Every structure is written in structure tokens, then in C-alpha cells.
């Protein structure tokens, strides 16, 4: 390259540098302009505090949907491994929906399919953003932040209804047919073990049939209560299949809820098990304070793999 060529290259270089800088500036202006006109989906921090304090607030002590003013609704959800509570909400179309979401344990994601809502859910913080659904239909809520072995199953559902249908549902609520045990199961357990109790190959064992059999063993009942309360970790075998997922501890559920959900899982699918776990059984077991590895030991002591 001679001097002349070099000076030509330098001249174009300066033009290119100007063009590149101008392009970046245009991008910055476009981003700022877009956000100035439409920033409903930009996450806001509503609270930063100890999770116990957050979960005790009015918003989260009983999560779900409430109408805060005309045509404006607040949805509160608690994310936990590996489900959203509540796992399904029903909302009217063309209404402003305010989402308040927090986490009980680890980081989770909250992304609503077919919308531009996407928030990180962090324990100790409350994430907020708002959205107005323009079309009725079913919208999946996806946890898009890795949260553990059952992460891929952490899904919620938003059912958006035409206004008239929503109003009718509110006026004539369908009688709550599900028992307490079934509703606790579907909120907390079904994302891993599935609503049918069939489990998931390799990770989460089937409960249908399996819990009924365990309930008949000597000491089986105590083991089931301890598992529900304190979780279970370590590889196990059920009906010849091995499973290495992790069962979280559920100490936050009440004695009534734990006994109901266990009785449901023992007999709820038409199995012939001994479904006689009482609140007193759960209250007594609470004082054990086992670790999830300890529960694995209890399992082996029962002669289960």
C-alpha cells in the first residue's frame, strides 16, 4: 500500500466512523422514543424486603385476582419451585391488568406468551408491570429463569374471557367442587407429579398407586408425612424406574392442607390405600425438622429403594 492508497483508506475510515456513530445515536433515540410512548411492560420494583414480610402483605397473603377499580384488576402471584400460585387465573379482555409477582425461594421468570410481558422474579423483591389483553384466549405463563430440576414444567395459565362471559362467571360462581386436598395438589404438586399422578420419567416418581401402597406399610404413614413436610433428595426407585428429581419442603402449608393433600394422593385416583392421615399426625411430625437427605434415610429404613 502506498501513501496515496493509505490516504484514501483513511478518508473512508473517517466517513465510516461517522456513519457508525450516527447509527448508534439513531438506535439510542429510537429506544428512548419507544419507551417514552409505551413503557407498561418495563418492570417496576414495588417492594424490597424479607420474603416472609412480603408474603404477609395483603397482596400476597391470599394471591389471586381482585378488581381494584372499574375495569382495572390486580393479579398477585407467588412463584415457587416449580409452580405459580395460583397456577391459573381468569381475566376479562380489554381491561388494565396489574401483575404483582414475587418468589418464595429462588429466581424465576414470568413471561406471558403472545404478549410483551417479561419479568425477572427475585426472592426479596416484588416485580410489577401492567398489560391489557386485546384478545380472549388462553395464554401460557412461562418460567424462563432456570430454577431447578423441574424448571421446564413451571407453567401458569391466564384465561382471558370476553367481558360478558367474565361478568357472568363472577355473578354465578361455579360451585367449588374440588376438595381441599385436590386443590392443594393441583396448585402445588401437579406441575411435577402431574394432575393424573403419573409423574415424569426419570425425574418425578408416579404417585398414583405408589402412595396407596406405601400407606399400607408399617410406618408408611409417618414417612409420607415427613416427605411432604421436609422434602426428599437422592435417587429413588419406584416400580423399577429410577427418579433423581428433588422434592422441596412444604412446611409453609398448614397441617390441614398437608393431611388433605396426602389423603387425596393416597385415595384420590381410585386407589385402595389407607387415607387416614390427620392434622394431629402432621402437627406431631413438624417437630422432627429433618433435612431432605434425612427423609431419604427414612425411605431406605422402610425397605424402599
Amino acid at each position, binding site marked *: *500500500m502506498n501513501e496515496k492508497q*493509505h490516504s484514501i*483508506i483513511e478518508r*473512508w*475510515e473517517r466517513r*465510516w*466512523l461517522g456513519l*457508525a456513530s450516527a*447509527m*448508534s*445515536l439513531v*438506535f*439510542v433515540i*429510537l*429506544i*428512548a422514543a*419507544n419507551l417514552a410512548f409505551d*413503557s407498561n*411492560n*418495563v418492570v*417496576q*420494583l*414495588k417492594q*424490597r424486603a*424479607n420474603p416472609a414480610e412480603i408474603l404477609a402483605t395483603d397482596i400476597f397473603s391470599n394471591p389471586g385476582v381482585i378488581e381494584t377499580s372499574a375495569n382495572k384488576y390486580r393479579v398477585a402471584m407467588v412463584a415457587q*419451585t*416449580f409452580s405459580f400460585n395460583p397456577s391459573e387465573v381468569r381475566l376479562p379482555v380489554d381491561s388494565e391488568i396489574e401483575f404483582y409477582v414475587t418468589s418464595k*425461594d*429462588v429466581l424465576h421468570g414470568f*413471561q406471558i406468551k403472545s404478549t410483551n410481558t*417479561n*419479568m*425477572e422474579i*427475585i*426472592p*426479596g*423483591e416484588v*416485580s*410489577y408491570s401492567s398489560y391489557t389483553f386485546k384478545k380472549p384466549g388462553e395464554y401460557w405463563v*412461562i*418460567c*424462563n*429463569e*432456570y430454577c*431447578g*430440576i*423441574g*424448571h*421446564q414444567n413451571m*407453567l401458569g395459565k391466564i384465561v382471558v374471557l370476553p367481558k360478558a362471559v367474565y361478568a357472568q362467571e363472577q355473578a354465578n360462581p361455579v360451585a367449588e367442587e374440588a376438595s381441599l386436598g385436590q386443590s392443594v395438589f393441583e396448585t402445588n404438586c401437579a*406441575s*411435577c407429579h*402431574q394432575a393424573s399422578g403419573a409423574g*415424569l*420419567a*426419570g*425425574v418425578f416418581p408416579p404417585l398414583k398407586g405408589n402412595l396407596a401402597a406405601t400407606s399400607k406399610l408399617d410406618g408408611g404413614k409417618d414417612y409420607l408425612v415427613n416427605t411432604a413436610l421436609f422434602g426428599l433428595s437422592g*435417587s429413588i426407585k419406584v416400580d423399577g424406574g429410577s427418579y433423581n428429581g*428433588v422434592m*422441596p419442603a412444604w412446611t409453609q402449608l398448614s397441617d390441614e392442607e398437608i393431611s388433605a393433600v396426602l389423603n387425596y394422593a393416597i385415595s384420590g385416583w381410585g386407589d385402595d390405600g389407607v387415607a387416614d392421615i390427620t392434622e394431629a399426625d402432621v402437627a406431631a411430625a413438624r417437630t422432627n425438622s429433618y433435612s431432605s437427605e434425612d427423609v431419604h434415610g427414612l425411605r431406605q429404613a422402610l425397605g424402599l429403594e
Partner: protein
Amino acid sequence: MSRKSKVFTGLPEKKLALAFILTAFAALFLGSNLGPFQAFNYAGLNIYHLKFMPFVNSYYQGLTLHGVLNALVFTTFFISGLLWYLPAKEMNIRPNMTFSWISYFVMLLGLVMAAVAILANTSNVMYTFYAPLKGHWGFYLGLALVVVASLMVAFEVVRMRQVWKKENPGKVTPIVTFMSVMLWLMWAIASVGIVVEVVVFLIPWSFGLLDGVDPQITKSLFWWTGHPIVYFWLLPAYVSWYGLMPKQVKGELASDSLTRLVFVLFLLFSTPVGFHHQFTDPGIPAGWKMLHSMMTMFVGVPSLITAFTIGASLELGGRALGGKGVLGWIKKLPWNDPSVAGQLMAMLLFIPAGAGGIVLGSFNLNIMLHNTAWIPGHFHITVGGAVTLTFIAMTFWLLPHLTNRKLFSKRLALGTVWSWFIGMIFFSTGMHWEGLLLIPRRAHISNMAENLQGVYAGAEFPMMLTGIGGGILWLSIALFFTVILGTIFLGKKDVDVPEVPFVDNKWASDTGLAAAMDKIWAWFAVAALLVAVVYAPTLYELFSTYVSIPGQTPW
């Protein structure tokens, strides 16, 4: 005296550079062989329950191993070997070999600790290890040792440059050394975040000395390092593109001052952009996110300058080789040289990769794509494509140079780079596309309780592309390691041993702009100040509302 010791007697640097680079490839071997399993997962094929791999218990453990070994370990070892060896060679200064060997062994110890922790199924926390997911202390301590060792290398390279400056008063640092020193200074500022995160919080926590940590703070500290670490990976590829490759194509460096300017800009702007990984985090105020988004747009500028300067440098080569017309010079480039062909393809991959990166850096667009499959799609054509393909291609001259053995098979080497290029195009096109359909990253979607097609409808075609890409890449890995092992064990001795292809830098000057940019400590201070300004207010706010969250191990 054995032949091997004869090679290294005069040049003990070669032996250590080889140790760094071969250890990097050992990590890559294990890490990359897990990759196709993850690609098949995104094609809807669940292979994990078949127990092909006895030491991997779950998709998530395999993914953690893949990410840590490839993105953190392979890169750090390779870069530490390369950007320690090249400056020493260019300045003709002997490094302190004892100190440098210690840094190698510290890094090796770190690698072994982290790998054992993951293999034992104790630390399935991904390479981002977001608390309160809690790994084994060996995992955190291992990673800390890898980072500390890399900073020892940084120290040694900067020290060698100071020695050179003293011996050459009034002269400007040689170009490859200048680029390397800027990278190491950038890394010194960038790594502060991860060092504080791991040393102050995660290690004491994993030893049980802390009950909990604040997930928003540790995540923010992670991304303090987590974004510039991508420049820590990318800039060594730039060093090769600017400082070595023009020589390989009979070209020359088109502009000395612009090359230096690019590296100064990277020193300044690589780090104060980390919040663009946290646009959907509630705890970071929107105003600061916007500022980081702005800085991210401007860190695109040095890469755009690079496209020009490298393009011009290569064109000079193509024309010297007889190329005519507007694009005719491209055809004349030595595409039959695997080292050149691989790096040309790496550059091609970086064009869509850079565009996709600007999308992700945009505050508004990012919200749609955060944590979707778009992200791994993006970083497989950046670090997995542009960077890794450049490292692979460089190896085709570097390994013969370090071992005095002829490259085992030029044809297999060409096959490696082509299959890597094509495989990554398939894989990454599929992943970007799945991201647009909001399929999440890091999800074992081939083993869902819900019907996959019920939730992620319409994704069959991109999923197929991802799977095909994974298969092609597996072939590429097999070819690459055949070439590596073939060269080491079967390569002809003392034949065609290439020298380091340092570029002809005719337009270098010891005055003016180049001299101003050689005041590295002034630039270092400005860069540190910039980072302090964009991080301090938010971190102060977060620390003053500290929340302690206990650890969880849900795997």
C-alpha cells in the same frame, strides 16, 4: 537429549503456552461433547433418560458442565496462554517463568475443583450461578482460582510491557502487545465484580459462615463481569484478525492508529454496560438501565470500525494475490489454508451476531427476548462461533509452531472449520427463531409434563434446524480433535514449522495519536472511573436495603 527438550530448551515459553492451550482443549473436549445432547433437547429429543453418559444425571447438570467448561474454562486457559505468549514473543522479553507456571497450576487447580463439584451433582447452578441456588464451596473456590490465576497472567504481561518501555524510551508499544495489554487491563477492571461476588459472598456462604445472600446484589455483581467477559473472549480473536491474519493473507494492517483506538474504546466501554443483562430485573432503576443501554449502543462502534479496518487489511492481501474488481479479491484469499478459511468464516458469523447483539442491547427489544432461546442462539455465533472458530483456526498454525510438528491433515482441518461454520448457522438460526416463539433457554423441554407442542406450538421447523446443527457440530468436534491428536502424536517433526505471523505495521508512528493512546494508565483510570459512576449509585441503594435469602439446591 530428547527432541522434545531440544524444542523447548531455548524457548521455555513454548512449553507453558502449550500447557495452557492443551488444557483449554481438554476442557473443550468434555464440554463440547455434551453440546449435541442439549441441541437434541431443543429438537424435542430427550436422550438423558437413556443414560448414555454415566456421569451426567440430568439435562441441567450436563448444561452446567457444558457452560462452565466451554465458556469459562476453555476460553480463560486459551486466552491466558495466547495473550501471554504473543506479547513475550513480539517484545522478545523472557517472562518470569516461575511466576507464570504458578499461575498455570493455580488455574488448573481451580478447573479441577469446579469440574469435580459439578460432576458430583452438587452444583447444578449454570455458569451464571445465580444465588440463592447454592453450589458446593469447591465450585465457587475453583472458579475464584481460575479468575485469580488469569489476573496473575495479566500482571505478568503488563510487567513485561513496562520492562520493554524502559528499554525502548520514546517508543510506542508494539501493536500486538498493545492490544493484549489493553485486554488485560480491561479484564482487571471487569473481574472486580465476580471477585467481590464470589469472595465476599458466595464462598463464605457456601462454607456456612453466612446464612444467606442478596440475590439482586450478587446477580448485579455477576453482570459487572458477565458482560465484559464477552469482550475478554472476543478481543483475542480481534488480536488475531488485526495483528496476525493480514500477514497470513499477504496483506498489511490498514491503520495502526484506528486499531489502537478500537482497543482504547473497548477498555473504556466494555464494562459499564452490565445492566443490559438485567433489563427485566425489578431491583435496577429504569433510568440506569437506559444509560447502560445507551453505552451498549456505543460499544458497537469499535466493532463497526473493526469491520472496516479488517476488511481493508484483507482486501490489500486479496489484491496483492491478484484479485480484481469490487469483490474479486475475496475469491483470491487463501481459502485453502484452514487457518485463514476458519477465521474468515468466524468474521462472517460475527456479522449477524453483532446485529443480534444490538437487538439484545436495546432496552425495549430485549424485554421480548430476555431468557428465551434467542440468547444461546446469540452466544453460539459470538463466543461459540466468531471466537471459538478463530481459536480453532489459529490452532492450525499455533500447534505446529509450539510443537515443531507439521499439521496432521490439512483436509480434516478444512473440514473442521467448514462443519463448525455450517453447524453453527443451523443451530443458531433454529435457536434465534425459537426465541422469537418465546421458547425459554435452559429448559429441558423434551421432558415436559405438558404437551410440548401445546405450549410451544409452531416450533417444529426451527427445532429441527437446532437438532441438525448439533449433529453437524458433533462431526466437527470429532474432526478437530483428530487433527489435534494427530498433530501431537503423528505430525512430521521439524517440517514446515510456521513462525508467528506478526503483521506488517507500516503505518505505525511513535508520536501523535499513537503516543497519546500509549498512556495506558490514564485510560485505565478513566475506565475505572466510568465503571464507578454507572454502578455506584445502584449498588449503594441495593446494599442499603440488603435482603438475606437462604440457599436452595432444587436438583
